[in-house]
């Protein structure tokens, strides 16, 4: 869990439970699973905010016909984003560690298997992730050549985190 990500979900709304009924040609079934577009809610990301984009991408609401309302499980959204960030950190290491096989490194293996999951660590990781994303181009998570120093910084920070929490 992370308080930084939870803040982004505070303003989440939900779609209105109004579904068009579509009868198939043979008249054997009625489809009612999609909300009419005008009643559908999708959160809009804040321009230039990486975390907001991730949160909005991971938005998920569930409908229960028993209660008749949509619900969004904020914890699930946050956990989903956290999982994406963890994976991206691994990808970052794979692409930026100055070694022939980064996946064999101690740092990568720690990031892949043993990264802690508590709140403080998650918040730190999120800050690091936003820092990394500042210096990566549109081409995945490879740091742009002109920001070589930042690449070293990010790796050093991760290594420091590893030493502290391992």
């Amino acid at each position: 869990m992370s308080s930084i990500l939870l803040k982004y979900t505070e303003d989440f709304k939900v779609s209105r439970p109004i579904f068009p009924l579509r009868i198939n040609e043979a008249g054997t079934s009625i489809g009612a699973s999609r909300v009419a577009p005008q009643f559908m809610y999708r959160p809009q990301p804040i321009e230039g905010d990486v975390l907001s984009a991730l949160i909005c991408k991971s938005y998920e609401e569930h409908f229960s016909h028993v209660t008749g309302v949509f619900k969004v499980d904020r914890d699930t959204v946050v956990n989903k984003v956290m999982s994406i960030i963890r994976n991206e950190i691994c990808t970052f290491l794979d692409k930026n560690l100055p070694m022939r096989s980064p996946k064999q490194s101690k740092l990568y293996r720690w990031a892949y298997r043993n990264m802690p999951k508590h709140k403080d660590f998650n918040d730190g990781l999120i800050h690091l992730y936003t820092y990394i994303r500042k210096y990566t181009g549109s081409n995945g998570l490879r740091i742009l050549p002109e920001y070589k120093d930042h690449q070293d910084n990010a790796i050093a920070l991760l290594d420091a985190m590893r030493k502290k929490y391992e």
Partner: protein
Amino acid sequence: MGVFDDKKFEELDWISQATEPIDSELNELLEKLPDELAIDFNTYMKLIGDRTYGIDMSLDTVIHSLLQQTPSNEFDVDKLSYNHRDQLKKCFKFEASTNNLTINFETRSIDGGELKLIKTATTLDEDTLKNMLGYEGICKVSHIGYLESSALGRINEIMELLGDCQTGLRTRSYRRKRHELVGRMQKLFKNNEWNIKDTGLADKVGFWIHDYIKEGNLAALSNFCRIKVMTHKGQPIYSMEEVE
């Protein structure tokens, strides 16, 4: 009344005796289902039941729901097979007065027009019923499963009674025997060689064969033999007196 008399046939009116239509419990059940059902919000929710997934509706769910609500003393609707449900399903369709129907959970209503379930056929046609003859029984025999060695003799007895099973009688393989037996039953009901005119009774033939082969049930064998004897009259068979 004799043991081999067909009470149901004798009670039929002269037109039915002359035309010999195939009888089925499904037709009676179909009659009990509503000809037209206006579906409002509450009916919609009732029809999809207390399932936890989705609000899509298919004829499967609707027929199941309607059958559950239909009081039926003659037969247990829960025991209706998929095939029977499929046949009932074909007699219904959904109809909407417009293309802009919506189901609104805020106001708990169906807006934009009317939604209906319409019965498109009041009885199952003769061809459908003909294809249904013996189907359930054949399915039961084909899924007979593991048999002990003494059952092979019973399969032979049944094949001898059915006739035209030389290949099945010759082979010592249980699987081949079962395969031949099922094939013979399919042929028998496809041509309706025994002139059975009731789908329920035709299904029972397979059930009796199954019970006798699997468990050595003598009552089942007795019933099977009785119906075999009745076929010698050359009359249509609608019912028979069963041994319990």
